[in-house]
Every structure is written in structure tokens, then in C-alpha cells.
């Protein structure tokens, strides 16, 4: 099975040159934590995530130093007001989406074996963009698209099996009716 089978189309695109405010509003409205972003020509630019947005919402030093080994394991001593967080939100909204996207994202093509995409998802890249050979975004594979695809497949198979069962049942019934008729006609002829 390849990625084409389980790929979900991208219905709404976010463009890298748009204001970050649009991405934030979009993610809040749609309850989406991870959205693919493209350039205007459809080339895949990266993923914008709730994680990275939260990183920008932290004080810059904490956001960076928490990723430095052994440098900053906590900052419990920092008691921030809503005003301070609001200031940073305003600053983040003023950036472009391109400034916030994670560009170090692994992509797959429609022909990539599905198992490779599943391994990426298991490795914590929850959305795997599917691109063509020109890096144009075609769709994405995620936990949901895989389950949805499998569900559809299951439904299709179940429906098929039910039909087959029904057909077999009908055949049996017909056979039984035919046998009954034959028996009755045999009885009548004997009489």
C-alpha cells in the first residue's frame, strides 16, 4: 500500500507570506494543532504547529535555553502577568507565517510506501506532507487520515462481505425453496 491510498487532500492552504495572525486565528477556529504551509506557487514551505507557536509565546530566552542540554530545566521563579504574555502574542501576530513554520519537515511522495509515513508519524511528526517531484503540496497523511482511510476500507470490505453473505443466503433460500417444490411435486406425483 502506498501513501496515495491514505492521503487526505489539503482543503485550506496557509501561505508563508501571510500574517501569522491568520494562521493563529485559523488554528484556533479549526482546532488544528498542525497545518501545512505553502508558498504562493504551491511549493511546500513547512508546518506551522501549536508547539512552535507556544515556543514563540514563551520569553525568548526560555524558548531557546530549554532546548540547550542542562541549561534551563525550569523557570518556576518567573511569575508573568497576562499583560506580558499579551505583549508577546501581539508581537507574534505581527510576524509572517513563514517566520514561524518549521522547515525541517520530512515529506513523502504519493508512491512512498505507507509504512514509511506511519514510521514518521510514530516518530512524533504527526502530519506527513505528501508532495510531488517538484515539492508541490498534494495532501497530507496523519493519524486521522490513516484511520479514516482504514475505516473506509473496512466499510467497503464489510459491505462487500454483507452483500456476498446476502447473496449466499438468498441462494440457499432459493435452493431450499426449489427443493421443497421438488419434494412437494414428488409427493403429488406419488399420490
Amino acid at each position, binding site marked *: 500500500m502506498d501513501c496515495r491510498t491514505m492521503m487526505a487532500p489539503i482543503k485550506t492552504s496557509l501561505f508563508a507570506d501571510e500574517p501569522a495572525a491568520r494562521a493563529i486565528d485559523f488554528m484556533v477556529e479549526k482546532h488544528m494543532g498542525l497545518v501545512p504551509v505553502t508558498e504562493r506557487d504551491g511549493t511546500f514551505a513547512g508546518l506551522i504547529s501549536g508547539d512552535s507557536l507556544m515556543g514563540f509565546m514563551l520569553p525568548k530566552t526560555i524558548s531557546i*535555553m530549554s532546548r540547550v542540554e542542562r541549561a534551563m530545566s525550569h523557570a518556576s521563579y*518567573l511569575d508573568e502577568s497576562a499583560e506580558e504574555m499579551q505583549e508577546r502574542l501581539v508581537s507574534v501576530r505581527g510576524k509572517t507565517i513563514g517566520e514561524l513554520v518549521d522547515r525541517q519537515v520530512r515529506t513523502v511522495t504519493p508512491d512512498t510506501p505507507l509504512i514509511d509515513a506511519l514510521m514518521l508519524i510514530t516518530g512524533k511528526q504527526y502530519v506527513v506532507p505528501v508532495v510531488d517531484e517538484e515539492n508541490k503540496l498534494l495532501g497530507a497523511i496523519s493519524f486521522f487520515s490513516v484511520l479514516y482511510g482504514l475505516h473506509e476500507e473496512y466499510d467497503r470490505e464489510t459491505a462487500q462481505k454483507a452483500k456476498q453473505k446476502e447473496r449466499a443466503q438468498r441462494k440457499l433460500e432459493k435452493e431450499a425453496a426449489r427443493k421443497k417444490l421438488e419434494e412437494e411435486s414428488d409427493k403429488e406425483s406419488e399420490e
Partner: protein
Amino acid sequence: MTTATPLPGDVDALAEGIATVLPMGATPVMGHSVIFGLDPLWLSATILIATYAILLSEKLNRTVVVLIGAGLVIVTGVISQAQAIAGIDFNTIALLTGMMIIVSITRVSGVFEFVAIWSTKKVNADPMGILIVLSIVTAVFSAFLDNLTTVLLVVPVALLIVEKLNISPYPFLFSQILAANIGGTATLIGDPPNILIGSATGLTFMQFMTNMGPLSVIVLIVMVPLFKLLWAKGLIADEKHRERVMGFREADSIKDVVLLKKSLTVLALVIAGFIIGEQYHVLPGTTAMLGAAILLLVVSWGETEHNQAARLHEAMQEVEWPALFFFIGLFVIVAGVEHAGMLTILGKALTEFTGGDLEATAYATLWLSAVVSAAVDNIPFVATMIPLVESMEPAFGGRDIMEPVWWSLALGACLGGNGSLIGAAANVMVSGLGARAGYPISFFTFLKIGMPLMLLSVAIAHLYVWLRYFF
């Protein structure tokens, strides 16, 4: 072995003294042959110089480079494996390992952040005041812990404070580097050159404290007005931003009070052990490793076997093994040149250069080590200088008389680290942290500030050595 003390200035007698007293003369004493019948003296010197050159290029990992150099010293037959192992200073390795384990456990308690924030609030979040108190905090921590851990814990807090104050972080980054190296100068365990010198010479923790400590304090005191002169103008924060820093809750930085008490107690006992142990011939390496083992025991007391193993594993993971193997490789390379007699020749040359005058030798060692340490990693330099200075001791009349030279070597190597951005490991660490936070430090920008301040501090050290030992 006794040697008549030559008269000052009697260079030939001194040189002769070196040649006759040392067990390893210019002609190496070895139980096996050198590959292809090569001259061990030149072979070992070539390996040492090639290793230095590759280290200087910074193209390859330094630990890998010295381990290859060490391997070559053995396989080419300059020294045997047994001689190489005998050349490794396990006291230094144990001291470094033990302190790394103790600090890795202690830092989890949040004590470093607590002290940094507490002192910041004591100066009412005034930017210049913060710069000074954080410099003092870093200097004091650096004196008793390793410099890298100190800057790794204090610099992020300093950057966060700077972010909240909305002021330039550069003065803080620069002052942290300078303070770490100045503070590290003060004690036997403060900076790797001191650990190496202390271990090789047997100079005690208290001797370091009393000889190096005062100079370290003097240099720091001199630096404060200079810091003000350099940076006070640009360090202005408005009341609103200062209030945000004053809102920091330092008590909340303590994550584990029990761990804090246990680790600080063990740390205090280890430092006491450094001082007391000397009287009973217990070397600092033993004290530090025993302290580390005791701390591991008390922090995992009552826990399941699995948790105890997990805690040990965690502590061991924080030990900087590449740094330890760097030291091991260096010891072997230096043992090679030492056995081959190269350092005896250099020692003789240095004695001739200074005219056999102890005072001149001390000053030459001070300035040489400062300048070299500014340009290259001071650890391999000091590791090489130690046997060289040792080779001069008998000619000058023994270790006690040579003490000013040892202090000069330590002062030059530690303070010299401030001369450039690559002068010491702490410099590289702070510069890396700054770059990651979006504040890159250029080599020349640091040089413009670091070099004059380093030269000034070494000049102060020169004056100190003169007043203390030769006046």
C-alpha cells in the same frame, strides 16, 4: 636526592644541574625500541606539535585528536602502554569526575538560579548592579565548581533578566566570561589548569586559596569600575521593566529542598575534605570521588533498586566523558615527550633564556602562559608546561623555591583565558549560548575588550608575584 643550589645567574651550572639530576635525560630510558629506529625525541615532539596544530585548526574533535596522538606515542614505541598508563594523572581524572557528579546532582535543586535571582533583587534590578552581582556570583561559583557548569546555569538566568529589562545582553555575556575565568583562578578546583598543577605538584587546596585567592579578588575588584566605565551608559532600564524582574520569585526556583540540603552538605564536606585531607595525604581526587559516591548514596537512600540504578545512570550521563578522555590522551602524549627528553631540553632553554634567575623565570612563565592561553586551549599548554617546570626544579633548588613559578604558571594560564573568545572553555560556552539566543559574539569584538582586560589582569598578577614573592 639533594642538589646544591646554584648561584643566581650561573646558567651553565643550572643547565648542568638539570642534566645530571633528572632521571630522564636527553637520552631517553626505554625498555623497547622506537619504530624504524627513529629518534624518540623528535618523534614525540612531532606527534605533540602535530596534535597541537590540529587542535588549533579546530577542524576535528579535540578528544579524538589527542586520543590518536596518544595511540601513536605508544604504537610508535616512544613509550610502552605501561608507561602511558603511569603517565595518566588519575588524581586529576578522579577530581574532575567526582566534581562533575556532585554538581550534576546539586544543580537539579535550583540553587544556582536561586542565588542569581536573589542577588539580582538585592540590587533592585538595577542593570549595572545586576551585571556586577552576577559577575560576583559567577566568580564565586567558578572558584568552587567548574566554570562550564557555572556559566551554563547563570548565563541563561542573566539572559532572561536582560530580556525582561529590555537591554543589551552583550555586557552581561562579556562580564560572565571574564568573571568565570577570574573566579576560577582562585582555587585548586576552580579551573582545569589549577587542577593539573595542584595534582602534579602536591600544592594544597589551602595553598591555592591563600596564594591565588587574594589575586583573584583583587582582579575582580579592579574589573568592577572598568565594567562600569565600559557599559554603564548603555545599561538603563525603565521602572516598568525593573518591576518585572523584581517580580521574580526566587524561592520558587528551589525545586527540591531535601535534595538541596543533602547536596549542599556534601559539597561543603567535600570542600572541607580538600582542606583537611591534605594533612592526612588524602588527595583531592579521592575526596571528590568519595563525596560523589556519598551524595549518590544519600540522594537515593530508601529508593528501590531500580530507581537507585536510574539515578546513578543519570549522574553518569552528565559526566563529560569526552573531556575526561581529552585529559587522558593529553597525559599520554605529554608522558611521551617527557620520557623522550624533549621537555628537559626546553626547560634548559627556558632557564638559559631567563639567565637562571628565579624572578625572571616566574615573570616569563606568567606572561608566556597568559599569551599562549589566550591563543590556544590552556589545558594542553599547562599539561606540557608542568613536566617542563618540574624539570627546572632541581636546578633552582627544589619545589619550595620554585613555588612562585608554579603560581605564575597557574595565574597566567587562568587569567590568559580571558584574552580571546577561544582562550577558555567557558568563553566558548558563553559565546555558544549567546549565539543560540540570537546574540552572536564576534571574535574581534571580544578581543577588543578581553585582550586589554586580560593584559591588565596579568600586569596586576605580575605586580602581585613581585610583591608577594620577591619584594
